[in-house]
């Protein structure tokens, strides 16, 4: 499912808003998650999961082309951990 398909689906079920209004809402929700993490805060949604940052230390890497050693600066990476319910739902073998 793509974002456009998600918007279509929600708009079809939520008839009090136009597709365009739903589109703006969906985009704003995902943007808000991004902004919250960028501020260093985390988001915890019961039954779904949590978004937070993981911190990667500075490390030494190599330029694969030239072989020269370069320092890779420390960085933050967005991380999602699925909640218990979601994990159980997906793990049906």
């Amino acid at each position: 499912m793509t974002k456009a398909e998600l918007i279509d689906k929600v708009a079809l079920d939520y008839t009090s808003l136009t597709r365009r209004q739903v589109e703006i809402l969906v985009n704003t929700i995902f943007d808000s998650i991004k902004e919250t993490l960028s501020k260093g805060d985390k988001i915890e949604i019961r039954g779904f999961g949590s978004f937070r940052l993981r911190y990667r230390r500075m490390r030494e890497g190599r330029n694969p082309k030239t072989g020269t050693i370069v320092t890779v600066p420390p960085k933050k990476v967005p991380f999602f951990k699925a909640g218990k319910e979601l994990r159980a739902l997906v793990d049906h073998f």
Partner: protein
Amino acid sequence: MRKSDLADLVVEKLGVSKKESTDILQMILDSIREELEKGETVKIAGFGNFVVREKKARKGRNPKTGEEIGITPRRVVTFRPSQVFKKSVNE
């Protein structure tokens, strides 16, 4: 920040009602959940992809006792943030 705080943030930004914000957020979460349950990938442009991955059976160890145990094959959800998302948290 909890679900309700996220809905509030959207209310502040757009001036929609709290009900609309909460409803749409809930519908997004439910739709993502349903897709993942079917094993389908969810691709949100500019945000990232939720992917179901199959993990093979492997041997593990109880870290406390050192006892060897079998880990059954399973399906797990992974989130791969988009380039835009990764960039935005480092600015």
